[in-house]
């Protein structure tokens, strides 16, 4: 495909703001992220607001009758997607710490997250 051979590398950021279940956004963002890996772009994932719950350890969706897709976050490094950022204030507001998360992340303050977003070429939010 031409776009894969174009050699253009842009900074993409996928911003996750929603809880993992209740709406389909988190799951379909993950599908976008996995496809983006095929394009050799500089991919960043941000988790803010209720989006921080997407990375919580010990998700059990049996009672919901929905697929637990949280193990996919652990597989992202296999796609060379390793830049995961979590907003400190969003975690604190929800009583979470880094120890509650199922993958290694970089924790950023709200201000630093804003500054990082500002450096991106393409920001996709859900």
């Amino acid at each position, binding site marked *: 495909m031409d776009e894969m051979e174009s050699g253009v590398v*842009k900074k993409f950021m996928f911003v996750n703001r929603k809880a993992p279940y209740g709406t389909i956004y988190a799951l*379909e963002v993950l599908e976008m992220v996995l*496809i983006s890996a095929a394009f050799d772009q500089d991919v960043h994932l941000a988790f803010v607001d209720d989006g921080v719950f997407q990375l919580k350890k010990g998700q059990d969706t049996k009672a919901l009758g929905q697929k637990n897709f949280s193990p996919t976050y652990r597989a992202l490094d296999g796609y060379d997607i390793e830049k995961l950022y979590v907003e400190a204030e969003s975690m604190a507001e929800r009583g979470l710490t880094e120890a509650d998360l199922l993958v290694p992340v970089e924790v950023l303050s709200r201000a630093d997250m804003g500054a990082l977003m500002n450096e991106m070429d393409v920001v996709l939010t*859900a």
Partner: protein
Amino acid sequence: MKIGILVNEGPYNHQASDTALNFCKAALAKGHTIWRVFFYYDGVLNAAPRAEPPTDDRNLFKQWGELAEKHGVDLVVCVAAGLRRGIREGDTAPGFRISGLGQLIEAGIQCDRLVTFGD
């Protein structure tokens, strides 16, 4: 400017489709290029093939189709999101085509701006 558009919400239920349409029309009128419109999440329902909105209301399906017909705008519906919601190849409103998420990433790479419409 070369602009890519991402529509994340279904028609009527949400303002996103109307606003994206108005944005496209305004950008084209100013001489910009709408390089591609990509429909994702419930946005794929903008391509519903047998929708019949009340005749005293705007027809968003028709307006998208006219944008494709008159201005050659590439309207792409995500295949995976479409299959989840009953929109598939050969069964869309006129003017739309079905393809993969790679088309969205490509728009991000190729366009000067990628503008999202949705919450």
